[in-house]
């Protein structure tokens, strides 16, 4: 299987969310992942995009490029690129998930999902762009049932 790549560019706005997730889904659905994994990938893509839509371009318009690549071993990489303010999700603090209703703050949960659910996450800042790669092992690689 050769590398297969597809990409789209969308305005960095919440209105682009459903189109973007549908674009990624239509690519990942062909790769043999089970429905649980597909849903986890949808979730992580949403979380990263919503973060960019809300914070990357304060007070101005911007764009996001989303590329899906399936590698020769069936590895899936979803690369999300924006030209907004520098932000490395890997350096953000994890939320306190044991706090009760009164003490609980919701911030940071989306990023926490991404760090927990993807097999690997890579960030680099290059040419004034944030380049985030969500990397998933092949559907054929067995994974812990209760990660």
């Amino acid at each position, binding site marked *: 299987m050769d590398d297969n790549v597809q990409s789209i560019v969308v305005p960095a706005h919440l209105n682009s*969310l459903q189109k973007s997730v549908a674009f990624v889904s239509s690519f990942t659905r062909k790769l043999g992942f089970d429905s649980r994994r597909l849903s986890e990938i949808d979730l992580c893509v*949403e*979380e990263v995009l919503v973060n960019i839509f809300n914070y990357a371009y304060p007070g101005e318009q911007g764009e996001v490029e989303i590329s899906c690549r399936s590698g020769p071993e069936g590895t899936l990489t979803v690369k999300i690129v924006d030209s907004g303010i520098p932000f490395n999700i890997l350096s953000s603090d994890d939320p306190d*998930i044991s706090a009760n209703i009164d003490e609980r703050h919701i911030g940071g949960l989306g990023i*926490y999902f991404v760090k*927990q659910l993807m097999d690997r996450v890579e960030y680099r800042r290059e040419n004034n762009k944030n380049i985030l790669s969500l990397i998933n092992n092949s559907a054929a690689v067995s994974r812990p049932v209760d990660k």
Partner: protein
Amino acid sequence: MEINKKKEKDVLVVSVSGRIDAVTAPDFEKNLSESIGAGEKTFLIKMNQLEYISSAGLRSILAIAKVLKTREGKMIFSGLQGPVKDVFKISGFGSIFTIYDTEEDALKQF
């Protein structure tokens, strides 16, 4: 996302189906806020038909739960499936809220 509500004793049973994402979560929150405004205090959120929820949905749930708590109300859940169950577990929401397998089990508590 679709929301249907019915009253069982003093409990407002809210069946939510489809997807609660960053686009639909504000509608979910507004819908439940209206019920709080109408005086409802106990909410059972029935999630059998809910396929997907993101952190935006959890944010709405937490916001509603905090308001209910100040009014001595509460929010409980039933029927979490697949990805929704996983998201509750990873986020810790499975520990801070009471979750029943079925609507019947939940309503027995009242």
